[in-house]
């Protein structure tokens, strides 16, 4: 992909990234299994959030279909896991989600704003309820068993998907596709008038974001071992990435990563110690962020940096 000069600065040195990656890659060797499992869950949220932000970040179309794409991957894994090797199952999970997203994307050509949001939610819920009805009435058994995979493998697969999703985010951002998507998000009609094929670009980006969600779903299913429509297509998988991305801030690549990491970790702690409080806390965090931190943690970091350079200039 080609490079486009962008107006925001990149401030994460390559060396730091490399060290972090090595750290994450070798963690299973010197850390408790419980932590590996925790990290896997956090990666799941990060992947869904980062993927969500690939499309919804620049275009400002809030998609609530994440549960559909994730769930499709989960079910692909459950259905195919017994007969196909793991890498194929994961690729398949991603691919089916990709196709579903293409289909949904082409359907929603004319829907914008609120209509798009409720439509994507409606589709997710329709899939969930239809599958539930199908299992209850046609096949007779609700839910399925999934082939078990050891937690270290699951961790590494998640890590790989995470790196890929982050890489794609970076590449798109710096490419002309990224500029086109941001133009669409700023003013879609103008974007169309300067030659951007809005429909095609929206749809393909939507599908790319779905691919990673599906892949993540496919591998997560093996962690849960038993899945049913409520687990696979839970509306929380649609709401959480939105919350996490807003909290982290969509202005920079690390925003969704940070937002998802913090909130996923918080959720883990809270659901074990104070299960009756985590929704309350998340709700308060969301409202506080909307009111006072519209650019999320990224905005906070940028303000702090500006304050730092101001202080430097004042002293110079």
């Amino acid at each position, binding site marked *: 992909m080609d490079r486009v000069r962008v107006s925001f600065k990149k401030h994460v040195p390559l060396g730091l990234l490399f060290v972090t990656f090595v750290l994450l890659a070798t963690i299973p060797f010197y850390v408790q299994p419980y932590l590996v499992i925790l990290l896997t869950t956090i990666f799941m949220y990060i992947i869904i959030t980062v993927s969500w932000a690939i499309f919804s970040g620049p275009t*400002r179309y*809030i998609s609530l279909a994440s549960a559909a794409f994730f769930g499709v991957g989960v079910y692909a894994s459950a259905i195919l896991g017994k007969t196909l090797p793991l890498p194929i199952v994961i690729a398949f999970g991603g691919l089916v989600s990709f196709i579903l997203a293409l289909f949904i994307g082409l*359907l929603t050509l*004319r*829907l914008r*704003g*609120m*209509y798009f*949001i*409720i*439509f994507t*939610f*409606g*589709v997710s*819920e*329709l899939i969930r*309820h*239809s599958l*539930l*009805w199908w299992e*209850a*009435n046609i096949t007779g058994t609700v839910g399925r068993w999934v082939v078990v995979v050891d937690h270290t493998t699951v961790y590494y697969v998640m890590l790989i998907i995470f790196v890929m999703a982050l890489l794609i985010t970076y590449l798109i951002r710096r490419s002309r596709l990224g500029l086109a998507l941001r133009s669409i998000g700023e003013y879609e009609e103008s974007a169309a008038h300067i030659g951007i094929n809005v429909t095609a670009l929206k749809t393909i980006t939507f599908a790319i974001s779905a691919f990673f969600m599906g892949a993540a779903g496919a591998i997560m299913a093996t962690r849960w071992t038993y899945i049913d429509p409520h687990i696979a297509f839970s*509306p929380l998988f649609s*709401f959480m990435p*939105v*919350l996490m991305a*807003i909290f982290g801030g969509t202005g920079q690549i690390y925003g969704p990563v940070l937002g998802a990491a913090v909130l996923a970790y918080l959720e883990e702690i809270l659901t074990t110690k104070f299960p*009756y*409080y*985590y*929704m*309350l806390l*998340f*709700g*308060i*965090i*969301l*409202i506080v962020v*909307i*009111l006072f931190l*519209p650019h999320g943690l990224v905005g906070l970091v940028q303000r702090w940096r500006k304050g730092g350079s101001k202080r430097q200039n004042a002293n110079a």
Partner: protein
Amino acid sequence: MFVAILDVVIGGLIMGGIYSLIAVGLSLQYGVGRVLNISHGEFIMLGAFSTWSLYTIFGISPLVSLVICGPVMFIIGFLIHRALFQYLRGKSESIGAFADSSLLASFGLLFIIQNVALLLWKADIRGYSYLDSSVNILGAIFTANRLVALLFAVVISLAFYIFLTRTRLGKAIRAAAEDPATAQVMGVNIHRVLAICFGLGALMAGFAGPLISMMYEIQPTMGLEYTIIAIIVVVLGGLGSITGSLIGGFILGLIGSIVTYFDPGLSLIAYYVIFILLLLIRPTGIFGK
């Protein structure tokens, strides 16, 4: 055969009455205030649970609770709008940005209210029996509470319709919905009208909650499903049309009743299918602009 039809039709009207109420509430909040209040169902849930508590602890009739819950919800809604959504409106750089941020804020409300309910009432399913004697209408059998619920729903809807068309405040609301800028120029206090509209939306939820609790079992997670149904009815009736929401509610209720007759598990699916088809083919709904 005739009894079956009567069963379905009256059953549909009963559900429709509730659907109309909650849809009108949401329509007011969205059509005028431009807030898609995804926590609407949580207000309904609060109304339902308050009624349950008042009945099981103090023996207060749900019909009396209705008169209490409605206004209380109105006040809560009004205050929330003033404190939260009005502030957001001032801070947003465009209508689109406000729509997004208010939707997200209402998500936050959903989480908070549902959690509060979980803390107060725990996660169990609750119910109580009130006016559950059977009434026979030409062969179709209904419990009295359902018929009373229908009666109240219709009366409230009618009263509200008269309010909107005959009173000064009602006309101000309709003016603000049509053309906020002009309305403001004509002397309508837009900020107060918007807050009142949001409060009225909560009022409808406050009325619907007790009625629902009379007929069904309730649990703290019940809210979202009602919010979705309200959204579907509003889209069906047409965004911005109160009449549309009223009529749409009854239409959806009837459809639900018909589908339930054949397979209860399919009713929600039927709603979603209708919803998606509407958005694809005629997003403006029946009466929308």
